[in-house]
């Protein structure tokens, strides 16, 4: 796991939206909920690899744009009846700044 890295301002991510952080190991999607919580997941749906950052965010979930898999932002788990899990990373907001801590092993894709 990396240490905390500053990746940008909270306001640069739309509410109920997401932005992408590029890494050599693949994209990480950083989500912002309606109540300004942030979550980070590999930008790959466990189903067919769809870019989760492009999905519709609702409550603490995102729907994959390719086949409507619904993924829990906190755990990366697909919501039943679908199955699968996306790797999560740590994310936090401090004074309007978003921080990310990448779990290396997970981002290999």
């Amino acid at each position: 796991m990396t240490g905390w890295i500053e990746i940008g301002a909270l306001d640069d991510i739309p509410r109920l939206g997401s932005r992408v952080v590029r890494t050599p190991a693949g994209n990480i999607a950083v989500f912002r909920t309606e109540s300004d919580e942030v979550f980070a997941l590999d930008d790959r749906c466990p189903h067919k690899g769809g870019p989760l950052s492009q999905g519709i965010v609702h409550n603490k979930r995102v729907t994959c744009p390719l086949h409507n898999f619904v993924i829990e932002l906190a755990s990366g788990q697909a919501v039943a009846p679908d199955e699968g899990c996306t790797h999560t990373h740590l994310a936090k907001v401090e004074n309007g700044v978003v921080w990310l801590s990448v779990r290396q092993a997970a981002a290999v894709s």
Partner: protein
Amino acid sequence: MLDKVTKQKLVVIGNGMAGIRTVEALLERAPDLYDITVFGSEPYGNYNRILLSPVLAGEKTVDDIMLNTVDWYEDNNITLRKGETISMIDRRTCEVVTDAGDRVPYDRLLIATGSNPIMLPLPGKDLPGVIGFRDIYDVDRMIKASTDYRNAVVIGGGLLGLEAANGLMKRGMNVTVVHLLDTLMERQLDPVAGGLLRKSLEERGMVFKMPAQTQAILGEDRVTGVRFGDGTELPADLVVMAVGIRPNFELAKKAGLYCERGIVVSDTMQTYDGRIYAVGECVQHRRQTYGLVAPLFDQAKVCANHLAMKGFATYDGSVTSTKLKVTGIDLFSAGDFAPGPDKEEIVLQDANRGVYKRIILKDKKIVGAVLYGDTIDGPWYFQHLRDGTDVSHMRERLVFGAANLGDGGVNGQNSVAAMSDETEICGCNGVCKGAIVKAISEKKLFTLDDVRAHTKASSSCGSCTGLVEQVLAFTLGGDYSAAPKVKPLCKCTDHSHDDVRRVIVEQQLKTIPAVMRFMEWKTLNGCHSCRPALNYYLLATWPGEYRDDQQSRFINERVHANIQKDGTYSVVPRMWGGVTTPGELRAIADVAEKFNIPTVKVTGGQRIDLLGVKKEDLPAVWADLNDAGMVSGHAYAKGLRTVKTCVGSEWCRFGTQDSTGLGVKLEKFMWGSWTPAKVKLGVSGCPRNCAEATCKDVGVVCVDSGYEIHFAGAAGLHIKGTEFLTKVETEDETLEVIVALTQLYREEGWYLERMYKWCDRVGLEQIRKRVVDDIANRKALFARFAHSQQFAQTDPWAERASRGVDRNEFAPLAELELA
């Protein structure tokens, strides 16, 4: 295209409930498709056979129960040949033959001959005074007998027999009911409920002889008595045989159609001869015959769908429920209640109140219910039975009914029957129970929609729909075929699309959170189904006022390109009417090379698709296309997509009008508009139809004398030819009609509901009335569309390529170089 000069001929045999319900449903879907002729043996219009019982009991008159008078047939250009019986079907020449020898040709034939009462083959069965209970003629004879004679014997202790006996008793006769078994209505009731029923009928003066077998009917010129198997005799001046019905399929059988216990039909209500359909009590479907109206009405709907050449509905059989129509006796039964090893029962018996309830469960679901004395919850149990609801969580209190479940999940299921007439049912429109009951009985309403139209109850927020349905079920008895539950918009709400749209307007709701709050959404922020729907509804309702919520849009509409399976995008610039120029082609070629776009493909909608563009390249690609004068083709949008044209009179030797020019005009006027689902247009220069206009959402076929406008076609998952809407003379009129049509669809369609589905739901005639016939309305629709275009016609590509809209969307938030 259908030949509009010589219409196909539809002949209907049987002017009863199933046949005419089918015709009504057909007229709704395709009013002009057929020349319809109806033959009916009975000398009347169409009446509600179910209500013969109250007529016999003196509670209603024959006039009260007429459903369609002779005028109705005339108004709808239907030839009614009442009092004429068909004696033969000649399948070789496709003709029916009347008993007077008249031959009438058909293209399609509908058999709806109902059934006949079974007359037991007893000695004396043909004596005057021995009758069945089936039609007005029988009722007339019974009423006459009740004034002239005293003693009646009813053979058969089923639903029909008891209603006949009750009616004759009300008319002052001494009535004895003879039944073969020792339980009344044994097909609907268990012995306990049968016993309770018998007791309360005896208290009213009815006499029972059961179990008893009838051996002979006695008399010389007229019936005088009945003799039984045990040798006893009863005096009788009138004998009503009500031991059952036999599907009336002799005619079909003689014509060589395959019959078993009824005319055998497929799931599309077709007999073994594809030109011949059959509905009602005369048919056998999946080994099942029916003797109640609710299933017949389901059949009618499916049959009409196929006669109207829509060809997608199927009939899967019905589950039925029964209610005895004897005033003062409450009895309800549904489903299967024979005991079995894998079944569980919940029984409640309250001798003091005269209440008995038995609910039969299997695999956590209700499979049967018998209610006596307190039937208010009948429809509620029946709903769960049909829906196959898992009821294990409410098992303990199930037998006490919906009202005792508190949050049982069904709204307003209080004791409708126990409510006073003044109880308000519909809060929005201030309609009380008495008014609804009155409208149902006086105007002979059958369905929820009827009640809505006549009383306005449940026509606003709709939260009282459950109650109104209960009032309907309670007022009509077994007569009510429950409309399918309104489908909620999605799992986040119980409200339907229509409710949501209506409330947005009525309550002036202008943001997604406001709608969710007001309509008590069950989830925070909704989901991927409802958010885009709400976003569209708000956008369509409040043009210029509502700010499009990008986060509630599906990705394609957010980035104005189509996401591909590898996460790249495809880009399709608009080519007005499918016409392009060397300059545009050159620009497209340059873009493709500059951005290493792997695939360049011509689409079905006459334009060019650039596939495999990386998301971050999108703004630059658009900028280059914009520079060459091209704008977004909205190939990703629930909105106006393409207008496909042929070359028309400008080049083609067959062309009658400038189809290309008209297509361009339409596209220029309509591009940028959002609609419930995608909209594709086609314009052909002559009936050879090279632009395939008749499988588009809206299609124009030019002819010498003008423009034929068609709509509601589709050629995707489903293939469906268009419906003819109207013909106009000028290009301007064509534009006006098409724009008005699209606007109506924008205002009424459910999100993701294609135009053809909307048309099937709302009805072609309804749409034509408002778009073609009512010119003021057409102009108003047109004006509303034009108004909203002011705010819609900005090129989303230009906004993003050069005006910095949504810049964040296309760039990463950060790039990390992890060690």
